[in-house]
């Protein structure tokens, strides 16, 4: 008997007991549905995060004081404890000989201030940034202008605000250009509003008030290093091309180590990290989550497989006489084995395909609920789930099928 005919026999046996077949498949349907949904959602989240990092700016490196390991407090505490980073450090990175792969450098000093508008006050994040911040970070204006060179030189008290700040401070005024606000009792004039950039992996950059770096350093958060130089919290470095970012990173590290007089063998007192490295570590976190979800889904497939084995064992017992008869008229061991194996595989794969359908529905539901994500049924998930359910059917069919195949025909024919 060939495979096709065995398959037909298996299908016949299944269709004779449709309700039971459907219930048996349920475990696999749910398991595969879960796998497909989770994998599609995982891929969507990954794509979303990658996109977010893209929006931060291309070829970017970040240099922050302290190390991520030793100084969880971040920029501010490092600035107090270690040497920190200063304007001089940033300027040194533009050395065309020592850092040929550095194209541009941006400076940022961050902090929080009491922000007051017409007597109502709240604490908000403030960033002092250089005039090229908008280019480096792909920040686009929805109204007004960005901070310019003149503002830096004059240490002007002007501010560009994120869209969430607009909602927070000026709920009745969508275009607050020219409004006066007070930051820690210093009066500022709003000159521009930024477009939304959404939340990123770091923080939401839409609820920040941007002011000229010079103003921040002299008036709002004055803090100087040992050389009398102003502190900064973060340096953005743009490499000349994407593939030169790691070369640029090495050059930056060398310059800063020398400036900070770090002996060879000692650790850096700053952290230089590229976007690619951040992406990699984010992907690492994601893959742990994906593996965890995958394990849960695999367990549900396993449970589905045990359900199939259970029903197949019942089916073998019920059809003992049929098996005896088939053997009496010439079925060999392997014919019976194949028949029952196919039955269990067909059951599992049919369940798998229905599960893919369920996963498609789940994916669509996620797409509707979280419109930022654009989850798509991943082909990889579909193939994986169907193959895996086929294997589950095969594995859990082996025992019942072997039992059926090894029945003694005389006993089987006599079975009541």
């Amino acid at each position, binding site marked *: *008997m060939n495979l096709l*005919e065995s398959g037909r*026999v298996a299908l*016949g046996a299944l269709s*004779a007991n449709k309700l039971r077949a459907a219930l048996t498949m349920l475990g696999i349907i749910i398991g595969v549905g879960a796998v497909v949904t989770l994998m599609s959602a995982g891929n969507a989240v990954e794509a979303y995060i990658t996109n977010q990092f893209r929006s931060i700016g291309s070829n970017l490196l970040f240099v922050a004081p302290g190390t991520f390991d030793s100084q969880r407090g971040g920029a501010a505490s490092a600035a107090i404890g270690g040497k920190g980073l200063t304007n001089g450090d940033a300027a040194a990175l533009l050395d065309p000989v020592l850092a040929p792969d550095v194209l541009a450098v941006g400076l940022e000093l961050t902090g929080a201030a009491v922000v007051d508008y017409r007597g109502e006050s709240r604490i908000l994040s403030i960033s002092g940034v250089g005039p090229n911040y908008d280019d480096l970070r792909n920040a686009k204006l929805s109204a007004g202008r960005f901070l310019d060179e003149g503002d830096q030189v004059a240490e002007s008290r002007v501010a560009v605000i994120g869209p969430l700040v607009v909602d927070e401070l000026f709920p009745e005024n969508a275009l607050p250009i020219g409004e006066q606000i007070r930051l820690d009792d210093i009066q500022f004039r709003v000159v521009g509003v930024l477009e939304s950039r959404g939340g990123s992996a770091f923080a939401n950059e839409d609820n920040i008030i941007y002011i000229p770096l010079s103003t921040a350093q002299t008036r709002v958060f004055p803090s100087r290093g040992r050389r009398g130089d102003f502190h900064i919290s973060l340096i953005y470095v743009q490499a000349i091309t994407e593939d030169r970012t790691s070369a640029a990173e090495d050059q930056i590290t060398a310059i800063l180590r020398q400036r900070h007089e770090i002996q060879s063998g000692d650790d850096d007192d700053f952290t230089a990290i590229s976007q690619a490295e951040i992406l990699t570590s984010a992907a690492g976190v994601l893959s742990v989550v994906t593996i965890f979800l995958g394990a849960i889904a695999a367990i549900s497939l396993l449970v589905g497989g045990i359900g199939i084995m259970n029903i197949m064992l019942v089916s073998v017992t019920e059809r003992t*006489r*049929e098996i*005896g*008869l*088939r*053997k*009496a*008229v*010439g*079925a*060999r*061991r392997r*014919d019976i084995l194949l028949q029952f194996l196919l039955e269990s595989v067909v059951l599992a794969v049919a369940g798998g395909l229905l599960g893919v359908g369920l996963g498609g529905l789940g994916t669509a539901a996620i797409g509707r609920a979280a419109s930022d994500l654009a989850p798509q049924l991943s082909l990889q998930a579909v193939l994986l789930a169907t193959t895996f359910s086929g294997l589950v059917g095969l594995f859990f069919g082996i025992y019942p099928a072997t039992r059926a195949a090894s029945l003694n*025909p*005389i006993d089987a*024919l006599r079975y009541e």
Partner: protein
Amino acid sequence: MGQANSNHQVIEIENLTRTYRLGKIDVQALRGVTFRVRRGELLSVMGPSGSGKSTLMNLLGCLDQPDAGSYLLDGEEVGQLGDDQLARIRNRSIGFIFQTFNLLARTTALANCELPMLYGGVPPRERKERASKALAEVGLADRADHHPNELSGGQQQRVAIARALVNNPAVILADEPTGNLDSKSGIEVMSILQSLNRDAGITVLIVTHDPFIARHTQRVIRLQDGRVVVDEAVAHPLRAGEAERPSEVSLEEEARA
């Protein structure tokens, strides 16, 4: 099939023994059975319950293997073969008819008849044709699409006969084929077996308790305690449907005689 050989004996068994081991007790079901069956014979095996009739049929049907002795089926020694070879012989050379019909319930009469050919590698077209032909031979051409539960007991047994026929076996083995039927259906079944034997020359071996059924065959082998005690020709075999069934009393007397 293999009828090509010059030997006229379809079955030659010599000193077959079969012992069942039940825990520490040995049950000697067959204690050396010897007989031959010529091609084209219609014979019956009788004997009290437990005398070894079913054990003998299982051996003849290659469902079981003897402990000792030899068994030539159609000239081929089949006493010591592997499982797959036995399956092949059952498929090609033997047609089974059971007391309880053993039709597949969820399958039509036609598909039931196709079953042996399915395992014989016959292509689907030819399978249908041969199954239809066999059903016609047992007078059930119009019931091909019926399921077993839509057929009477006698009709079901006729489907089983058709199934036994389809691979053109060397011998048809019927273990109490009329045991679950009323006497009228039983005679119908005998009538079909007789005509297959008479017209197509098919060798048929019937196990029966019923002396009246045995009288429709040409020869009776009587077993007792795993041994052949009688092996004789029936003087005037009855033609199914022509003779009235005698009263139970006279049958009993004849059986004792």
